[in-house]
């Protein structure tokens, strides 16, 4: 960028974006340490009493625990499934590959409210509604393309000759897969797993549809509490999500580097 007017305009817009993106996080962090009983500006003073309060609040703690279960189930289901699918899409010649692509993108093209209600009806039919684990399966379904995407981009970078060389040296199919293919796609698997965990943790709409009072996950719990009243204890529990997001961003940066998302395909 050489022109100063371009710089000015672009940075003004970027400034607006930065404020819009960061404000809620900063405010939530600030509100969580207020000593007042309601959220006010400027804050009444510093206190950690709301953290104490949420540590005591059984329903919030249970909701957090259920969200962790949902995320774990989601990763356990989606990661192996998405990994082999990603490998299949890049390493094998398949017929109807365009049709498969359209089919596997359904979780993204079908609106979440549609997939959520559909799965609610299906799970209801199967008699598994009212458990926590189906929510994890549902999260695995709706975010599956993320894993397939990240694994297939890693798999595309693997030289086919390496697998052939392994087989030439006497490795069987399982050995080739375990010692050559899998390590090569590992960056994609880790990125995918991380994405799936965090997205399932923060997933809202599908959880709202699939949970009842006994199985609410944390985002749904926060949503329900907001509807009644806005108090600082919600800000304190929201900090859980900020911390998880910070860890996720840090891990993602350490493992694959955030810059990878800027690469052109």
């Amino acid at each position: 960028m050489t022109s100063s007017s371009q710089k000015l305009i672009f940075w003004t817009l970027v400034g607006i974006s930065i404020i819009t993106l960061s404000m809620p996080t900063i405010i939530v962090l600030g509100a969580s340490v207020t000593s007042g009983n309601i959220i006010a500006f400027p804050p009444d003073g510093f206190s950690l009493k709301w953290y104490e309060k949420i540590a005591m609040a059984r329903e919030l703690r249970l909701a957090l625990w259920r969200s962790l279960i949902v995320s774990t189930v989601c990763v356990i289901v989606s990661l192996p499934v998405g990994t082999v699918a990603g490998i299949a899409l890049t390493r094998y010649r398949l017929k109807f590959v365009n049709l498969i692509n359209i089919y596997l993108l359904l979780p993204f093209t079908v609106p979440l409210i549609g997939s959520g209600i559909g799965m609610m009806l299906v799970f209801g039919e199967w008699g598994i509604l009212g458990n926590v684990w189906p929510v994890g399966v549902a999260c695995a379904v709706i975010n599956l393309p993320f894993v397939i995407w990240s694994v297939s981009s890693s798999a595309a970078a693997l030289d086919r000759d390496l697998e052939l060389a392994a087989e030439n040296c006497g490795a069987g199919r399982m050995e080739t897969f375990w010692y050559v293919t899998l390590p090569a796609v590992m960056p994609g698997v880790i990125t995918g797993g991380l994405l799936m965990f965090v997205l399932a943790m923060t997933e809202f709409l599908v959880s709202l549809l699939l949970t009842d009072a006994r199985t609410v996950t944390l985002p749904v719990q926060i949503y329900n509490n907001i509807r009644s009243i806005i108090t600082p204890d919600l800000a304190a529990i929201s900090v859980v999500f900020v911390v998880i997001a910070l860890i996720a961003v840090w891990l993602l940066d350490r493992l694959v580097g955030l810059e990878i998302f800027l690469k052109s395909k």
Partner: protein
Amino acid sequence: MNNPTVDRTRFRYPLRWRVMDSLEEGASLIWPRSLSRHTGWLLLAPALLLVGILVLGLVQIAESSLHTLDTSTYLPSENYTGENYLTIVESATYLRILWRSLLGAALTVVFTLLLAFPYAYILVRTSSALVRKGLLVILFLPFFIGQVVRAYGWLIILGNSGAVNEVLGLVGVEPIRLLFNYPAVIFGLVQYMLPFAVLLLAPALTAIPQEIETAAGSLGANWLQSLWYVVLPMAKPGLIGAGLVVATLSLTDFAMPAMLGGGSQDFIANAIYDQFFRTANQGLGSALALVLVAIGSLIVGLVFMIFGAGTLGMGAKK
């Protein structure tokens, strides 16, 4: 007399080899090499089955949309009928909600792309690694924090006794109702979509060599001209991809209209939810859901037909 030579029978075959060999044998048993032409399909099968749950769900919705609610028994009717769809088409309420959602999606696309383009541009073009890292972190954090917590943050900021109104109060301005109106919902959608849009745009901008812009400049184009005639046309796949994702996601969003619209600014998703959980009219809700799926697919299909898939193609790049 002890024999010093190595006792060959005592050689331990490493455990790893044995595990691998038995895995190999197991694999040959379950999936003999003669089937290896179909290995690709075998690997794909679990994903096809998992997405199958979703397809099954759509079938269920379709089935249930063909039954009307019997108001005397509160059970779905036995016979098949298209009445629910008729109700939607004839209802002024649903047409208004539909129009509100479509307009909302269009506005969100415009504003999001307006903010996302310079963000992605600077992200890609900046020479400072620190600036790039900072912008990336600022982008990813909200993406991972999630919709509900971010909307909650905005409720605190924009509320009647929130930060913005406090600041306005200091300069003597009466509190303004910033929440629970249409602009609040659009704003909520824009800030929610921004990371998606930037992440879809950035790769497309990376693909444009900086030299081309320099060349345009050296041929006498000012930055607006080179932006308009060079960068934007070359970034078209990214703009289409980002615009499409933003459009479909905001058209079908539930949380922002519910939380920042306060029930008065419902989008289609909210109407569907209400039919299922407030009115318990599963048939009408299902019909609405199918209409939404159809509109979404129609938009995607139209854009793909006119502009191509943009940056959204998956997997098949060999």
